[in-house]
């Protein structure tokens, strides 16, 4: 009877530990975007990005409030929110995807792994399938995510005013940098 109880306790505790380590998250992830064009280079940074990773299933989710992007120039920030991304109308951006080579990543062992992610990116109320490459670094119980991808503003119905259409790039590079901690239930 004692042996059965011990086995049960062991099995349950093992399951709880496994569950506790399945999910990792952050609310202070960074996402930056860069656009290089003849008229002006545009750069903005967001440092309140929520990310959640289920390493068992390989699912990955990012969420951010558009209004949280910070620019160096105030006018650029105002135009970005008011005319381009219309943050009052479309306050959030989101990515829901899957690490396609999840089985190649050893989450319990410190190391650096190449990662490929595929999923749906929603910006400005438009959702498109997107792929990104990056790396996952496992270090002292934390998971660091670094990735970059290029998107076209026209894919997300972000309209650049005619006057500057040839001078502002339609292509934007997005860089992701997030340090995820285990999610304790």
């Amino acid at each position, binding site marked *: 009877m004692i042996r059965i109880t011990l086995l049960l306790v062991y099995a349950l505790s093992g399951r709880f530990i496994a569950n506790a380590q399945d*999910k990792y*998250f952050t*609310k*202070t992830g*960074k996402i930056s975007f860069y656009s290089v064009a003849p008229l002006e280079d545009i750069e903005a940074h967001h*440092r*309140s990005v*929520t990310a*959640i990773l289920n390493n068992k299933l390989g699912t990955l*989710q990012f*969420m951010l*409030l558009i*209004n*949280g992007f*910070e*620019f*160096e*120039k*105030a*006018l650029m*920030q105002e135009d970005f929110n008011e005319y381009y991304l219309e943050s*009052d109308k479309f*306050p*959030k951006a989101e990515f829901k995807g899957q690490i396609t080579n999840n089985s190649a990543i050893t989450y319990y062992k410190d190391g650096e792994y190449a990662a490929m992610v595929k999923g749906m990116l929603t910006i400005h109320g438009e959702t498109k399938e997107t792929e990104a490459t990056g790396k996952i670094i496992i270090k002292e119980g934390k998971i660091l995510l670094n990735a970059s991808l290029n998107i076209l503003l026209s894919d997300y119905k972000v309209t650049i005013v005619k006057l500057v259409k040839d001078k502002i790039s339609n292509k934007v590079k997005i860089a992701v940098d997030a*340090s995820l901690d285990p*999610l304790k*239930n």
Partner: protein
Amino acid sequence: MPRKRIVVLLFFTLLILSAVWVLKEYNRKVESLKNTKPDIEVTAEQLIKEFEAGDSLPSKKYSGKLIAVVGVINQVDKDDHGFFTLVLGSSNSMSSVRCAMDSVFASDIHSLQKGQATTVKGMFTGYQKDETGLLGSDIILNRCVVEMDPKNKQE
């Protein structure tokens, strides 16, 4: 002075003034909120309660506003790049007010600790509702600064 010359002079003066204004506006930096008076003062608990009520009215009420939030510090987050986030809230709720701090005033944060009451002011960024049921919802403020108690202000 002939009338024509006055008109030309006036035209060029206006042109130069406009160019200066455009250039100044184009290069205008995002200002620090340190010495700006808040539009609204509210407690963290009240703010969380308003957003948890679940309609879009609070977002409209606080949109574009500089808010001073009075609350107890649940957490002081420092990320790998040295940026601070102060988390204010109550122990009764998973939701919180997350204040991404202005890095220029990082020295004001070093003395703050979990459990301490403080006032933080920042621009209302939005409400991030937790759709996973795991993380708690957040009211996010940006470019935040700690509102110093006038008694503790250094001259």
